């Protein structure tokens, strides 16, 4: 009798010890992206003193991350619920082309101003809703439907200007880039607003909780009576809104409406989300993680140019660092099946 009670206490203690270990490991893994970010700043700062200047760390890097932050805020929710969105480039490019033709421009007589911006965002949201509907009603994987939607959006975008991009003449749009508040372009502040809205959605709304629940184990919210399809559609609507805003920001920066606005955005967006610590299988991570990821990607790009890393090595270095942070920040079980 005395022996078995000694064993049960020992098992309980061991259980507590294991749980504490797992919690510590989880904390360490969560800290890996932050530690990496700090390490990158220190390394680049020691190689190039100009890297650590306020004008680079504050004005330059924050401006450079604006569009990526917005696209990542949208993609984070898709990945949190266990899906993926590959339509980034096409959607952002389309939004950039579309808004260019609605506001004052060199190609037509339209001059809708702020209304043009609202219409573009609404239209992008509508496309997102369409993607969500097809994903849920026709039960097509998000991979394929967003991949196709991206191409469709790209084609529509090119059709809007037929190879001759319109110059954007609307001063309001141009001032999103030219006008500065506290040393940062307006569009950077817009990116921050999008971030805080995303944070609010994640932390303070039922929608945010449902997204996590769906990503963690979809059956549970279904059994709990959550309208999972509606949540999924709303996630893609949110992503569409983010891509629309990013497209408008890109058009403001370039001063023209053309499909290039979305070019080469997909990989950095996905990288930022994953490197920040959001799990590709869903249910773990969040927008704060993504913010760290966006900072890592931007600091890396900025730092390598500052440090004069040869072109040929830059992509390789980026890849190595990304793999390293993912390896260090993921818990891998021997029993886990990896595909």
């Amino acid at each position, binding site marked *: 009798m005395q022996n078995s009670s000694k064993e049960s206490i020992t098992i309980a203690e061991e259980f507590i010890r294991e749980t504490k270990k797992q919690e510590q490991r989880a904390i360490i893994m969560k800290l890996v992206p932050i530690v990496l970010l700090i390490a990158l700043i220190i390394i680049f700062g020691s190689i*190039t003193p*100009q890297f650590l*200047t306020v*004008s*680079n760390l504050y*004005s*330059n890097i924050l*401006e*450079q991350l604006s*569009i990526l932050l917005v696209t990542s805020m949208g993609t984070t929710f898709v990945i949190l619920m266990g899906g993926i969105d590959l339509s980034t480039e096409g959607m952002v490019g389309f939004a950039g082309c579309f808004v260019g033709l609605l506001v004052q421009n060199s190609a037509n007589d339209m001059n809708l101003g702020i209304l043009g911006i609202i219409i573009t965002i609404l239209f992008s949201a509508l496309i997102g809703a369409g993607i969500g509907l097809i994903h849920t009603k026709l039960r097509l994987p998000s991979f394929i439907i967003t991949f196709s939607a991206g191409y469709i959006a790209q084609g529509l975008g*090119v059709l809007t200007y*037929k*190879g*001759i*991009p319109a*110059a954007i003449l609307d001063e309001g749009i141009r001032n999103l*880039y*030219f006008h500065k508040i506290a040393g940062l*372009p307006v569009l950077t502040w817009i990116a921050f607003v999008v971030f805080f809205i995303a944070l609010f959605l994640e932390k303070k709304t039922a929608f945010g909780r449902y997204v996590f629940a769906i990503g963690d184990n979809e059956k549970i919210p279904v059994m709990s009576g959550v309208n999972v399809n509606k949540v999924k559609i709303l996630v893609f609507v949110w992503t569409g809104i983010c891509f629309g805003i990013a497209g408008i920001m*890109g058009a403001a*920066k*370039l*001063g*023209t409406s*053309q*499909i*290039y*606005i979305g*070019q*080469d955005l997909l990989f950095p967006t996905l990288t930022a989300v994953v490197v920040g610590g959001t799990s590709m299988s869903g249910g773990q991570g969040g927008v704060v993680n993504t913010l760290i990821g966006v900072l890592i990607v931007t600091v890396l*790009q*900025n730092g390598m*140019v*500052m440090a*004069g890393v040869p*072109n*040929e090595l830059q992509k390789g270095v980026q890849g190595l660092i990304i793999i390293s942070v993912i390896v260090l920040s993921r818990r891998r079980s021997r029993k886990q099946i990896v595909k």
Partner: protein
Amino acid sequence: MKKLLSVSIALIMVLMLAACSNEGDSGTEKKSTSSELTESSEAPKPTESAESTDEKLVIGISVRNIENPYYVQIYDAVKQFTEYMGEEKFDIQFIACDSSDDQQVSDVQAMIARGGKNTVIYIDPNNAAVCSSVAKICEEAGVYWCSVWSYADGVYPYNFNYYAFHQTPGQVESEKELCLDMFSQFEEANKGKILAIKGLEGNTASIDRFAGLNEALKEAPDVELLDSQNGDWNPQTAQTLTTTWLNKYGADEIDAIWCANDEMALAVIETLKSQGLNGKIKVTGFDGITDAVNAIKSDDMFGTVGANPWLEGGQGVAYLYACWKGDLDVTSLSEGERCFYTEPQILTKENIDDFIKDYIDNSPEIDFDNYMDMIYAPLELE
């Protein structure tokens, strides 16, 4: 029910595959997986096979993307040619490969599948390597084609029956001339610091244009190239590089930013505008697109090299048409008539008004009958 559906789909796919393999020219059946290129001794001689028919001639235009105004001008020129000759005789296929070599090769095969021997192809290779594959495919299919801007080492038109010609605006010399002109107009003539944004790694146009800059730097030893990076032809990348460099070096230390094309140059100008530096830091590009022309006129941009897409596209296709029709036997032409420069136009503030009058405000007249006039100088490839 599911089994029936699966079998039906499989059957449809088999029938489609069979249809594709029997369609059009036998060239697609002879597609080789080998990348090794040999002269085809089995391809039909041009004079034997290039007969005009009542069928439509497929004019395939294969480019990197259709967002670049330069390519749109090529298309416009080809369209003018078809209108000149009678539109109903032609079927224009204008296809972008989205910067993918494999996609471009597939596009060429698709064009040939559409028109068979009644196909001519005008291609701006995404990378030099594409030329090898296209040369082999077209040689086997008996389809005339030409390349513009990029070519592959060892793959030269005069070694083939159906690789009609390669044309390029002289990029090295024209870039050199433009850069030397720009250096001479620095605050302290021929002394200063510049930065360079190249195009895509491995792309001949990017390599040649950067070579032109380097030639100019050799003749201006007091001009220092602080850094060069690949912009990948992406305006957003060009903007990111610009802001990073402005922080690294400081605006006062930079006299000019050289860009491998106009689109990147225009993006750089927007970034400079946001910091009040447009016109203070000189910017150059390449292509001569309308927005660049306007930027030169407004002193935001120093200059560009205008290719002449109307001439290249219009007279280029006229050349291919003559080959297809049997009016021109390329095998009898000299090397210089099959590999040549077209005349580049260096555009700066001094001549921009004339250029606008001739090419922007009025549609340029293209002489389709005297297409050989587009040859400016022979291009030595070996």
